[in-house]
């Protein structure tokens, strides 16, 4: 396997530091750009993300046209704080009320397609502790500067926050290295060039996102890469080095549940592609064990596996957006 894609489509955020130039190109191409932050109880980090993006990429350089928070029903002050600092805040369950409601990050990202007005949509996790506006402009950069690239994904060093006040220099990315990379190596060696396929920060053109299905939970990143790869090829994808992203450390059990969903999503995808044949349906419950009073007891979790169809198949969406001219890009 040649690493030609890796060499050609891998960038560093500093390649896109000329924000004035990005704004000029955006205006020349008459594009609108939306930032979407999916949230669930993110009151500690949401204000910082909104403030920095608004200050740097709306007020100082008008690269973003809107910042939209899609919330899964936070019980803390996430919505109030995000609104206070100027984001447009939506409760996911209030969007497209005519269809059945699900809960999950993928659900929020999918519904953001209906709410936002941008031709380009940037998705960022809302729990980034060391948020910087490079997280947005570096993902938008390849989309604006290249006519070939339609989807850009972040990679970075992943220091993790331990406890409340200490940082460990390396760590994280365990699900990538233990689950996704082996699977890609087995079935799609080309995709191993994507260094962090599970990163929660990516941007793409609406006409890409609206044409792919969205699993509502953890499987969203995996399915997105596989679907874009299958429909448009690897060449439309870019990856950008954002250097450092500090995130919350998750315990092994939580990573186990995440891996369960990712594996399931992956296996379903490759079955659809005719790469494997399943002799029986997979189970949909993750079974872990916990020690209680000297006894091991099963901890069974039903893990969300619903998948939203491509947004373009939703009548309300087609009514609002098609034939591709958006009513208001101001």
């Amino acid at each position: 396997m040649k690493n030609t894609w890796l060499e050609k489509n891998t960038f560093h955020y500093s390649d896109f530091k000329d924000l004035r130039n990005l704004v000029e190109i955006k205006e020349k191409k008459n594009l609108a750009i939306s930032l979407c932050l999916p949230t669930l109880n993110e009151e500690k980090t949401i204000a910082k993300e909104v403030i920095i993006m608004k200050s740097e990429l709306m007020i100082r350089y008008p690269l973003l046209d809107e910042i939209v928070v899609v919330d899964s029903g936070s019980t803390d002050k996430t919505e109030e704080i995000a609104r206070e600092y100027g984001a447009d805040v939506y409760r996911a369950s209030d969007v497209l009320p005519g269809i059945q409601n699900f809960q999950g990050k993928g659900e929020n990202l999918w519904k953001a397609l209906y709410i936002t007005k941008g031709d380009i949509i940037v998705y960022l996790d809302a729990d980034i502790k060391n948020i910087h506006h490079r997280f947005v402009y570096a993902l938008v950069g390849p989309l604006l500067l290249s006519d070939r690239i339609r989807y850009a994904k972040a990679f970075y060093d992943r220091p993790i926050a331990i406890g409340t006040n200490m940082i460990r220099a390396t760590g994280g990315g365990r699900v990538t290295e233990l689950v996704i990379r082996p699977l890609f190596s087995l079935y799609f060696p080309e995709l191993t060039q994507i260094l962090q396929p599970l990163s929660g920060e990516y941007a793409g053109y609406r006409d890409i996102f609206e044409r792919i299905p969205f699993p509502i939970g953890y499987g969203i990143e995996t399915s997105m890469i596989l679907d874009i790869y299958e429909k448009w090829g690897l060449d439309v994808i870019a990856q950008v080095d954002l250097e450092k992203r500090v995130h919350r450390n998750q315990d092994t059990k939580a990573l186990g549940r995440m891996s369960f969903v990712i594996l399931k999503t992956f296996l379903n995808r490759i079955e659809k592609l005719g790469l494997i044949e399943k002799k029986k349906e997979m189970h949909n419950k993750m079974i872990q064990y916990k020690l209680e009073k000297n006894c091991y007891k099963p901890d069974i979790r039903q893990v969300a596996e619903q998948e939203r169809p491509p947004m373009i198949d939703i009548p309300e969406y087609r009514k609002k957006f098609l034939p591709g001219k958006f009513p208001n890009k101001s």
Partner: protein
Amino acid sequence: MENFIEEVPSYIEKIKSLKETILANIVMIGQVPSPTFHEARRAEVFQERMFEAQVDECTIDEFRNPIGVIRGTNDKKPPIFVVAHLDTYIDKDIDHNYTIRKDMIHGPGIMDNSAGAGILVSLPEILRKLALQFESDIVIAGLIYSIGKGNLQGVRQLLGAWKTPIRGAICVEGGELGRLNYYSDGIRRCEVECIISAEDGAEYRFKPNAILILNEVINRILTLRLPQRPRSRVIIGKISGGFKHGIIALEGTLGFEIQSDSDDMVKTIFRDITDIVDGISHEYQVDMKLKTISSVNAGTLSFSHPLVKSTVAIMKKLDLKPMADPSGSELSIFLSRKIPAVTLGVSRGHNYHRINAQMEIEPMYKGIAQIIGVMKAIDSGVCDEEHLA
């Protein structure tokens, strides 16, 4: 002068309209760890932010202090300096994650002095928003090597290399809103180190304990008769030593600071403490070293100096009650060079030097208005005559 003082309260709403810019600057600077002697990355960010704010000139001086200059309208007027130290007391391995809530920013170092530095780099855009022009150039400087063992080297070097007159200066500190420092004590910050040989030797019948010896130093310092005039005191600020509970401490360090409004008295007290340390070293036959970590000379503006009077007037106009205390910060270096200067705080906060430090957001707007009011006062000429005591 009264005219612009009347206008100062009206700045607040316009400053508030730049809320995102100011908070973004505070967070972006504050999240970069910056203990003394390791401020390089924060200085870079400070400079980047000034560059983004399109300051007329943006540079780093020979000592690596980042500096921005907003050009004034009259090149015959000396510049006004507005400075904030970039270093903090927080170790670089501590997670410098900042959290913004509705009314509060939380994060290590926020009050001393990330808020001060963040507000300083926001000044160019705030002045633009207020459509304020100054006759003097405004020199905005982030200062490195300032606190503790930094011994105010950043500001010393900056002023040492600045060959032309300076009209006046404002030192910006995160807290506390309402502080008005216009005089500084003479300060000598010292450490006594006690080291006992780990080898068992004939010189000790009973092995001495470094902590108990330092305790003896403290006791004797406390017996010193310190005058009320000139006002003088010794603050015992730090003590460390030992290895574990059940082992005699063979090493210990005591940190203290001599403060007085008379430089001569600082010297006298230092001599007394030197005698104490030498005496105890001899009595117990242990190695003791007394080191001076930093020192600054006393300096003062009189309360009747026009800069002080107009600062008080501005604060009162903003319903702030001025609180006067001596300051051992950058102020002392300005005053020692006969440059009229004050130190102002920008907001109120809690747990200043702890990792869970907090700053209230709302009072900050008043704090910024106050700084700009004092800049206007200096630009109107309140420092233009020799008023230093």
